């Protein structure tokens, strides 16, 4: 039996517009999500903003009740056995919010250690260990309002691990961190996985998922559109090659015109300093470079390169709905 199991999870939000003539509408945030995470696995849930990642996590950590479907953690139902689930999980949301700003990092950890039932004698050594782990040792007596974003993020990680939970949910933990802070946090996540924790990680960063996750599910518009190991996804979804064309002053509508070319699977545009890079994923038997160049309306072209698809290319293919 999987440690974390979601079966046909649905979640609909009811929202309203207008004041006097209030109109209600239902928004389906999650539409039939199913997956299982095995003991000790680091499972990635990838998707664009609004895809349903956070809603899925919130159902698994008992903060939201599913509209339909079931989910369990370590065999406990997330609705019926919410307290049993809460005892066994840690969770961390990305961003700066979620900290008692006026109090010190130590006060924050001390309070949650009590809430999570850490035995009194173990609280101090446990907090010391976690402060060391997340690199906040020596700063714990400062008020949290003076912490940088990265420090708050690390405080969240420490809070989520206070009771040494076997299952950890990390919702975009590296969002907004500087590269060094994000790298350190990724190292911490990797060490948790090595220590045998079962982890569900959501992220926007494909290289992060590629580097950390044993398996990945890509979610888009509330539905899982692909899942497997990073290697499986690259092999099965992103067939063919990727052509990158550096263009200075990309004409409007170019991406749409290139997308319509035979053999083109997906197209995206990245800004890199003064240039725009047209990233074109092609099917294995296509060679559309000449056709792409002829659609640039005479714009200045810089470097042209070909490479194997990355996980990011897989992601773009999946969430662009092509």
């Amino acid at each position, binding site marked *: 039996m999987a440690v974390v199991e979601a079966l046909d999870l649905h979640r609909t939000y009811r929202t309203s517009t207008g004041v006097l003539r209030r109109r209600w509408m239902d928004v389906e945030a999650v539409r039939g999500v199913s997956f299982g995470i095995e003991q000790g696995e680091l499972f990635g849930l990838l998707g664009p903003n609004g895809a349903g990642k956070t809603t899925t996590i919130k159902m698994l950590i008992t*903060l939201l009740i599913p509209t339909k479907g079931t989910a369990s953690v370590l065999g406990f139902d997330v609705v019926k056995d919410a307290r049993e689930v809460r*005892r066994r999980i840690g969770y961390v949301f990305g961003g700066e*919010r979620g900290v008692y700003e*006026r*109090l010190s990092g130590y006060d924050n950890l001390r309070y*949650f250690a009590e*809430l999570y039932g850490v035995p009194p004698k173990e609280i101090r050594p446990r907090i010391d260990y976690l402060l060391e782990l997340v690199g906040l040792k020596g700063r714990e007596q400062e008020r949290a309002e003076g912490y940088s974003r990265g420090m708050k993020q690390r405080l969240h990680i420490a*809070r989520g691990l206070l009771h040494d939970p076997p299952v950890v949910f990390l919702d975009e933990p590296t969002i907004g961190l500087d590269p060094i802070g994000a790298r350190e946090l990724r190292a911490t996540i990797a060490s948790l996985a090595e220590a045998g924790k079962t982890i569900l990680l959501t992220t926007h960063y494909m290289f992060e998922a590629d580097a950390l996750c044993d398996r990945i599910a890509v979610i888009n518009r509330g539905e899982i559109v692909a899942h497997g190991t990073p290697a499986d996804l690259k092999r099965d979804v992103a067939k063919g090659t990727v052509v990158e064309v550096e263009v200075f002053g990309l004409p409007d509508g170019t991406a749409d015109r290139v997308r319509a070319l035979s053999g083109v699977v997906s197209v995206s545009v990245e800004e890199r300093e003064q240039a725009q890079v047209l990233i074109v994923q092609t099917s294995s038997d296509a060679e559309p470079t000449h056709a792409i160049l002829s659609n640039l309306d005479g714009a200045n072209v810089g470097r042209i390169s070909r490479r194997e698809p990355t996980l990011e290319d897989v992601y773009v293919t999946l969430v662009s709905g092509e």
Partner: protein
Amino acid sequence: MRTLRLIWIGWKFHVKSLTLSSFFLLTSVLQPIIFASIAYFMFRVGAREGTLLYVALGAGMMGIWSSTLFGSGGAIQWQRWQGTLEYCIAVPPPFLLVILPLTLATATIGLYSLTATLIWGRLFFDVPLEVANPVAFVVAIPVTVVGLGLLGLILASTFIMYRNANALSNLLEYPVWLVTGLLVSLSLLPGWVGPISWALAPTWGVNALREAAIAGNPWPEIGMCLALGAVYLVIGHFTLQQFERLARERATLSLT
């Protein structure tokens, strides 16, 4: 034992957090001056029976009620804004044990308002501070704080459920001052106000303090305050359970 420890640690945590708020510091300086002035001028123009201390205690209790009302509700709303509400909901203990220390802390903070109101009254308006029955007075204070804190528990539960429950707390401040006899004597109010006032702990709390101050018998009032507190605890436990579940169903725990 574990429950008591959780309440104690939570109470200390929230008292510390509240006293580090600059908004609290500002209101804790200004409000007692305003309340002491109200007490003094009401007494002077009223020319009714009773001592100045009798009125000043009512004014001090206004501060405890305001602190409980805005503290219990405001703290929930503040936790929602700063993103800690979800973290507090998804912990293993019953939500009652998470919120109760918070509401007790806000009522305790209100004690400062009572003390400061009496001191300002003494300094500027010569309010006499002699208490006839100090033992009963000292007992009545924590009982009143606990009674109000438990009433705050019921209020807090509505803030869990509704993102805009501030309107409720704004609505409740002045009416409760009135119907519990903090501002004017209950004998001046219409008869139908009586049963409402009897159901509210501030009524019995202020009466206990007043009786202790003027050498009356405060023990029945102290008993009523405790009894009402117990009723509030049962109601609060039920409403918190229901509202927590509804909030998880309707997704009102966070701002997004």
